[in-house]
């Protein structure tokens, strides 16, 4: 997902009886679905895990502007240009309020930015793939935003107040994003043979990376148990992945496109699709920084930040001068 490998505290789950009174009261609140607010007591592990999770999510929104941003200047009509621009602008907005949510936990936006730019903090693997054709913009809206919604809808109910509220806002916009992506795909799928081919090619390239967005299989997902007990993760990776496949395959069929998986077939018994093996080697390579666009994405963010330093410092200098003038005038 947008936060794919959030390291939680390595320790096993404690029972309520093993907890000290503070921690126990905290856990009981969570069990009773009462939101935790920033100024309330929380275990250090909860705070740290949430900072990692929310900041990873925020970084994903920020880096996620880049692959789609590529196509704003080449969008094929005025309406498509405006819609894509509005969408990418929304992503920046999501980043902004997620950073704000994380700041309530005692970390600054500058610190988080520094962690992103130094490569210490992660962002979603999906944004390290290139956008090669206009159909990729459709596929990203449809699949990537579709997968994001799948994960974010349950997080609207997560235990931490600011994160939950940010997600409620984010989800509203994401569903518009997904619709615009699917609409692009629909037009292409019904368009000229070249456009249809473009749409199929985009599905071929984005399908598997989209499935990887949900993170490693449950058996290898070592950090999930504690996060689920804290209700900052509401479903397992495999549950969400299955739900995504079940929802998306009929959408592909409606478009007349073929999901690039020969093992994909309906399983009556489980009332869901069976699907092929995901190439986890590729996933872990991307997390290590060896994906097709890792260097370009991080490089673009580093360049924006360093090229913009004079701008930020100029504004600070002005604001200091103004304060000094005000004091002098008084």
């Amino acid at each position: 997902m947008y936060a794919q490998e959030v390291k939680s505290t390595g320790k096993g789950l404690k029972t309520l009886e093993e907890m000290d009174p503070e921690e126990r009261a905290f856990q009981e609140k969570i069990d009773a679905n009462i939101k935790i607010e920033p100024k309330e007591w929380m275990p250090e592990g909860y705070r740290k895990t949430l900072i990692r999770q929310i900041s990873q999510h925020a970084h994903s929104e920020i880096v996620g502007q880049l692959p789609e941003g590529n196509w704003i200047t080449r969008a094929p009509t005025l309406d498509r240009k405006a819609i894509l621009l509005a969408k990418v602008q929304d992503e920046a907005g999501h980043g902004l309020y997620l950073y704000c949510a994380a700041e309530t936990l005692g970390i600054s936006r500058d610190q988080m930015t520094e962690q992103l730019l130094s490569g210490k903090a992660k962002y979603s693997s999906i944004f390290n793939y290139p956008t090669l054709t206009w159909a990729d913009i459709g596929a990203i809206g449809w699949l990537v935003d579709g997968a994001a919604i799948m994960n974010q809808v349950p997080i609207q109910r997560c235990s931490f107040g600011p994160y939950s509220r940010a997600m409620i806002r984010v989800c509203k916009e994401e569903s518009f994003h997904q619709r615009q992506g699917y609409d692009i795909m629909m037009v292409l799928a019904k368009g000229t043979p070249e456009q249809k081919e473009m749409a199929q090619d985009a599905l071929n390239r984005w399908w598997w990376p989209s499935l990887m967005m949900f993170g490693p299989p449950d058996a290898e997902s070592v950090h999930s148990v504690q996060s689920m007990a804290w209700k900052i993760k509401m479903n397992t990776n495999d549950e969400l992945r299955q739900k995504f496949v079940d929802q998306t395959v009929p959408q592909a069929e409606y478009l007349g496109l073929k999901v690039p998986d020969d093992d994909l077939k309906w399983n009556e018994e489980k009332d869901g699709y069976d699907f092929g093996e995901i190439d986890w080697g590729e996933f872990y390579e991307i997390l290590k920084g060896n994906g097709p666009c890792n260097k370009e994405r991080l490089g673009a963010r580093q360049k924006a930040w360093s090229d913009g330093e004079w701008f930020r410092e100029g504004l600070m200098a002005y604001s200091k001068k103004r304060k000094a003038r005000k004091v002098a005038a008084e």
Partner: protein
Amino acid sequence: MTGDPVFEFALRMGDNCLVLGQSNSAWCGHAPILEEDIALANVSLDLIGQAKLWLSLAAELQGEDKSADDIAFLRDVREFRNCLLVEQPNGDYAQTLMRQFLFDAWHLPMLTALVRSTNVRISEVAEKSVKEAAYHLERSTDLVIRLGDGNDESRDRMQSALKALWRFTGELTTPDDVDQALQEDQAAPDLDEIAAHYEQYTQRVLREATLVIPDVSGMQIGGKSGLHTEGLGFLLAEMQSLQRMYPGASW
């Protein structure tokens, strides 16, 4: 002058918005700070929306069953009617901001006057655009002042940007046949009045920003009649690539 001056005028207004919106939108994801990413994308969105209004009007007046998209994506450099200022490259963020300011300071009084145009179609578009232009000018004025009067580097950058761009501002208020024809019908304002307003406003803001207006000799003119600078061809090549590559396709 050949053809309908209202058509020519709609193209000029529309192409200004389109070219500037297109250039600004390239910053999306690359601006100096997140708030700027969002704000500049907003400005671009407004401009692209306004471009659509003007170019739809132009398409209608042309009467060849074309759409605003046909006009935007299927004309070549010599048929574009935007002023030279808006087609100047993004450069650093200082140049982008200064370009925006120098345009906004003209755009707002223009649209304000056009709201009162005797041509209903022109006044309708102006009415829809004028509030956005007022916000654009407020924002670019504020940033020009703060960065001009910021620190040495920010002042140097803003000053260089002003130096590079000032020579393209004369065109904004230099009337030609089209402007005169529209002015006679009271469909568009007297550009001399806009010029006086422009001079007064830019001087006041740039003084507050501690920036020096360069020598005004050597003003460059040509965009309004289709004689552009070299950068526009590259901008169009990028913007029009899909429409050119797949003629007749719907998107």
